């Protein structure tokens, strides 16, 4: 059994860990509210954007000559995956969940003998992926400097993706992120953004639109914006998810630390009592022998 002194030290150290996790939980809770708010506020924009594009692509008359961003390059040889993770750890299974989802997708792609390229956004994803897929990662972006997800950053990623697409570096682009459902549940998502996948979604109206200028021009203007918007949406969802995940992870850690302190305290008290009893027995038996 550990000595009394050792137990005391352990209790003190667990208590200070508990203080840290508790503080992190509070910080995450405060940040979560803000992140959640902006994620919810950001939804109308991406939804509206999606709607407009849906209406547009339904109305397009000449499907053969549709912009490549919409219809694809006609082949599926090279896949680009944008894996969006956080820059900081200690947020439970947040990053691992995304990575797991991404890895199973990667394995599928490689099994089919297709080429794989990876862009990681956020340093944690890069750390986890570079061990196995190091040679596949073509770019690593991290926004450590910017406090909150902002559209400017998303636009940078979007522009890079489009640049690579126009240079013919890939055919299909998928982004990986966590969708924020609630504090406890975040769902890892794989969303294909190039070519745009609108299957299964019905247009809200059959009405035909007037376009000014013509469809092609609007589409070629709109599609790049949509890419940035989708990436921005993913970033917002991600940052809300990250804080939520961190909050529940830190909550658990705080509770576990509390349990551990209780257990150690009991053990400490027991061994203190045992020592006293032992001393008493020694004194008594010493007195008896006289």
């Amino acid at each position, binding site marked *: 059994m550990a000595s009394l002194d050792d137990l005391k030290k352990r209790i003190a150290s667990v208590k200070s860990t508990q203080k840290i996790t508790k503080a992190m939980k509070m910080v995450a809770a405060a940040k979560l509210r803000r992140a959640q708010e*902006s994620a919810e*506020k*950001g939804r*109308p*924009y*991406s939804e*509206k*954007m999606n*709607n*407009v594009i849906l*209406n*547009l692509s339904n109305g397009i008359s000449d499907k053969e000559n549709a912009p490549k961003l919409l219809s694809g390059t006609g082949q599926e040889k090279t896949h680009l995956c944008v894996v969006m993770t956080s820059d900081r750890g200690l947020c439970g299974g947040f990053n691992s969940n995304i990575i797991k989802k991404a890895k199973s997708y990667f394995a599928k792609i490689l099994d089919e003998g297709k080429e794989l390229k990876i862009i990681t956004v956020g340093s944690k994803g890069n750390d986890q992926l570079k061990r196995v897929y190091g040679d596949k990662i073509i770019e690593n972006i991290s926004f450590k400097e910017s406090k909150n997800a*902002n*559209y400017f950053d*998303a*636009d940078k990623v979007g522009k890079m993706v489009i640049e690579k697409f126009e240079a013919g570096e890939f055919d299909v682009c998928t982004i990986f992120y966590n969708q924020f459902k609630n504090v406890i549940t975040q769902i890892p998502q794989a969303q294909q953004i190039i070519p745009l996948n609108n299957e299964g979604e019905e247009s809200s*109206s059959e*009405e*035909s*639109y*007037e*376009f*000014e*200028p013509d469809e092609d021009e*609007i589409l070629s*203007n*709109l599609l790049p*914006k949509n890419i940035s*918007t989708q990436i*921005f949406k993913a970033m917002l969802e991600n940052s809300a998810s990250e804080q939520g995940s961190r909050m529940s992870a830190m909550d658990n850690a705080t509770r576990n630390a509390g349990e551990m302190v209780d257990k150690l305290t009991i053990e400490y008290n027991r061994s203190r009592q045992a020592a006293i009893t032992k001393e008493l027995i020694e004194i008594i038996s010493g007195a008896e022998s006289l």
Partner: protein
Amino acid sequence: MSEEFKVEIVNPEKSFLVKDDVSEVVVPAFEGEMGILKDHISIISFLKPGIIKILSKSGDENYYVEDGIVEFKNNNLSILTSTIFNLADMDKSKQQDLLKQAEEEANKTDINDQSKYLADQKVEVLKTLN
């Protein structure tokens, strides 16, 4: 009054403005200014830098936008834009900042014709504001 319709302006961060007593909106569409009244035909167009004028019973409002998309359908006007400022909140220094940025952009030599045109537009619009 049945001459009113609903307008909604959203930017990536939030829903910027919702108004449902609007009688007319003038938007700087790509091929020229476009006034939209109630029961306009469904239309999708995109914006160039300019001023959005919203005329309504509760007063007129002016906004400066740099880009965006407009969609009008069933008497709902949606404007999606990434850069929008209410002219009433915009003071001289902000205007000057934007103007300086736009001028710098317009003076770059390595940009293509379309972005050059857009930057020139920005400069022009911002100059008229002063």
